[in-house]
């Protein structure tokens, strides 16, 4: 079980309120991702749930029981830290055993769980090494192993992949997703990377300045962002925003259109502009278009085959059904 409920939770550091009153429920078994730019309070929120920080006011309930004042050790949660936070003076085996040793589990049960975790995480050959002798990915697995053996009611991940290089990150992303499929345990995952959020989450919580901007499934957020911030934050490359007369045509203060929802051609389309930079990724090509009279730059995703050069004047056509409309406050117009 692992349902976590935040009720009117706030957090201030001195006079600075980093989290204004916030309500959120994470259902049992859910993979919930907190995403937002750095300094948005997502890590603070996670630490509040972990019990590493006190809430300033409000309540946190785990499985329906008030855990607001419960110390971290007693909350039944496991955490994987950004720096992995392995104990450098202990072997991998001892690292993984540590939480069970603290819980005074019988030796044979400890051994059984260590072996199972090591098996699942491909760590069997490394059990007697020290963390210092492991690669980044292996350390990450040890940290996860240490979390698994506790059989917690929920896992908390604090930007666990940000110290890995790009290739490893994709692999670990898959492994964590698989782990979730297998264990079906609640996971709360903090990241600033919207790609991680989109690919892993059942539910994404987008935060900015301590405020929840939107909660929803990845596709909800992609298709119907509640406001300009979410629209701009989710999706890569970023959504194009256009203001002024063009937006007025759609009865909006601002309209947004994603790069993948614009088609380019040499001579057809309502908008026009000059190619400034083209990024060829092979499968796709991104064009950065200037001199459109709409916005400084408009980014367009085209098929990898399409080839325009710097300085070419081309025409753009947005897909009408994919235009997002926002009012002057940046809120979505339904």
């Amino acid at each position, binding site marked *: 079980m692992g349902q976590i409920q935040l009720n009117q939770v706030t957090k201030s*550091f001195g006079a600075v309120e980093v989290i204004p009153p916030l309500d959120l429920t994470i259902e049992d078994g859910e993979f919930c991702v907190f995403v937002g730019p750095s300094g948005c309070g997502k890590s603070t929120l996670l630490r509040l749930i972990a019990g*590493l920080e006190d809430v300033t006011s409000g309540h946190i309930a785990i499985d329906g029981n008030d855990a607001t004042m419960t*110390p971290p050790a007693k909350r039944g949660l496991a955490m994987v830290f950004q720096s992995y936070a392995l104990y450098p003076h202990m072997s991998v085996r001892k690292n993984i055993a540590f939480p069970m040793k603290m819980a005074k589990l019988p030796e044979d049960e400890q051994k059984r769980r260590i072996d199972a975790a090591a098996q699942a995480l491909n760590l069997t050959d490394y059990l007697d090494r020290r963390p210092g002798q492991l690669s980044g990915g292996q350390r990450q697995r040890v940290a996860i192993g240490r979390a698994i053996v506790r059989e917690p009611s929920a896992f908390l991940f604090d930007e666990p992949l940000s110290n890995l290089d790009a290739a490893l990150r994709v692999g670990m992303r898959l492994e964590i997703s698989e782990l979730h499929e297998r264990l079906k345990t609640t996971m709360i995952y903090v990241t600033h990377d919207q790609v991680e959020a989109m690919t892993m989450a059942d539910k994404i919580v987008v935060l900015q300045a301590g405020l929840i901007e939107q909660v929803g499934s990845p596709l909800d957020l992609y298709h119907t962002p509640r406001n300009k911030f979410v629209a701009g934050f989710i999706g890569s490359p970023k959504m194009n925003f256009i203001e002024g007369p063009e937006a007025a045509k759609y009865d909006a203060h601002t309209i947004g259109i994603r790069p993948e929802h614009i088609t380019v051609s040499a001579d057809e389309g309502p908008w026009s502009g000059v190619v400034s930079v083209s990024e060829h990724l092979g499968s796709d090509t991104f064009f950065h278009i200037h001199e459109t009279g709409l916005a400084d730059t408009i980014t367009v995703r085209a098929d990898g085959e399409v080839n325009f050069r710097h300085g070419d004047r081309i025409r753009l056509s947005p897909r009408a059904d994919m235009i997002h409309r926002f009012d002057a406050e940046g809120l979505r117009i339904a």
Partner: protein
Amino acid sequence: MATQHSRSAARLMMAPAVILLLGWMLVPLIMTLLFSFKKYLPLRGGDLGWVGFDNYIRFVTSSAFWPSVLTTLTIVGGVLVITVVLGVFLAILLNQPMWGQGIVRILVIAPFFVMPTVSALVWKNMFMDPVNGLFAHLWKFFGAEPVAWLSEASLSSIVMIVSWQWLPFATLILLTAIQSLDSEQLEASEMDGAPKLAQFGYITLPHLGRAITVVVLIQTIFLLSIFAEIFVTTQGSFGTRTLTYLIYQRVLESQNVGLGSAGGVYAIILANIVAIFLMRMVGKNLDA
């Protein structure tokens, strides 16, 4: 950044150290303050009642007072200047590539291991003795008249002995600091055409600022209260009576506790003046 729980735990865990030090500071301090307002002669009648500020006036008007303050400051200042200047020089030297660096470093640190009573005795007898000391032999070898170091040049002799003891410390801290200097900075300045001397002045020395602060702070703490070096060599004669030694003589030799305590209060005030200076300096430098 922590929970209420860990904050109260922190207070609890800090308590023993804080309470012990508070007691260590306050109890004797208050007693000293009380004694300083009394005529208190343990061997000649004991506590003879309150005398107001008499002790303070007597201590400060005694002919020994100002010279002792001056002696104290001379020793502290002299040792600081010598150890910092030589320390910078030595640190730069030891930072150069060479053979047997580890051994040289051990040789240089060694004086720090020597207890003050030993070093004072060794210097006094085996080096500075005007008849049998090594310096006397050296002077005679060059045809000069041997110097009676501890009576004719007593203050400089003491400064020298104490500098010898503290030079290792200064050198080591400065060496550690120099080693942390980013060599790319030096290379960049070389590319910019800075001559060696300018490099030293504009890059190395400012980089050492923090380390020098630490040296000055820690050495001052210890130097203000040097005792054994004087106790074993001159017993405070020949103008080497520091404030510490003067008070020691009043309290233990003349057994005038009231007067000595008043002196103690002066010493505490002097130390605090120096401390405020230093803390200002360090507080600023330690944050950086």
